[in-house]
């Protein structure tokens, strides 16, 4: 997760909005890391844990449930 948040901030630094999607076990860690890397508002969205054990259909449902949030995050000032 933490490598992904760094990527996201690197994209932001070069002017491209970027959002990380992670399992919700990482909400606390992501908040802390965003603060520590100097950007508490780093764009991030979470899907309910677990991920690895889910069927393909469940994963597609997760995508459907989050896509609007992702677009909104990228479109947010």
């Amino acid at each position, binding site marked *: *997760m933490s*490598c*992904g948040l*760094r*990527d*996201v*901030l*690197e*994209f*932001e*630094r*070069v*002017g*491209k*909005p*970027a*959002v*990380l*999607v*992670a*399992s919700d*076990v*990482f909400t606390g860690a992501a908040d802390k890391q965003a*603060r*520590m890397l*100097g*950007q508490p*508002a*780093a*764009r991030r969205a979470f*899907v309910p*844990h*677990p*991920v*690895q054990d*889910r069927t*393909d259909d469940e*994963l*597609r449902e*997760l*995508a*459907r449930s989050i*896509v609007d949030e*992702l*677009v909104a995050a*990228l*479109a*947010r*000032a």
Partner: protein
Amino acid sequence: MALENLEILDPTPERAAAGLPLAAPMRGEARIALVDIRKPRGDVFLDELERLLAQKGHAVERTMKPTFTKPAPADVRREIAARCDAIIEALAD
């Protein structure tokens, strides 16, 4: 002198809390890069995201990070940033 203060040196990097600006927001039917961090099962999730974003009118480009254990190499990031307006990186677990 038991009651004197003890001075020790800070073992941390003593960083100042910075406030980095976010990039300008995505506008309209932007071209979106979907970056797969290559954790297992992420591809199924991203396939569906790609389909849904395309339905919403976005051009979508798929890339993979070489490994989830390190941040993306600078040249990979540069290429993505050059071609796309926004990035979604998934799926970290």
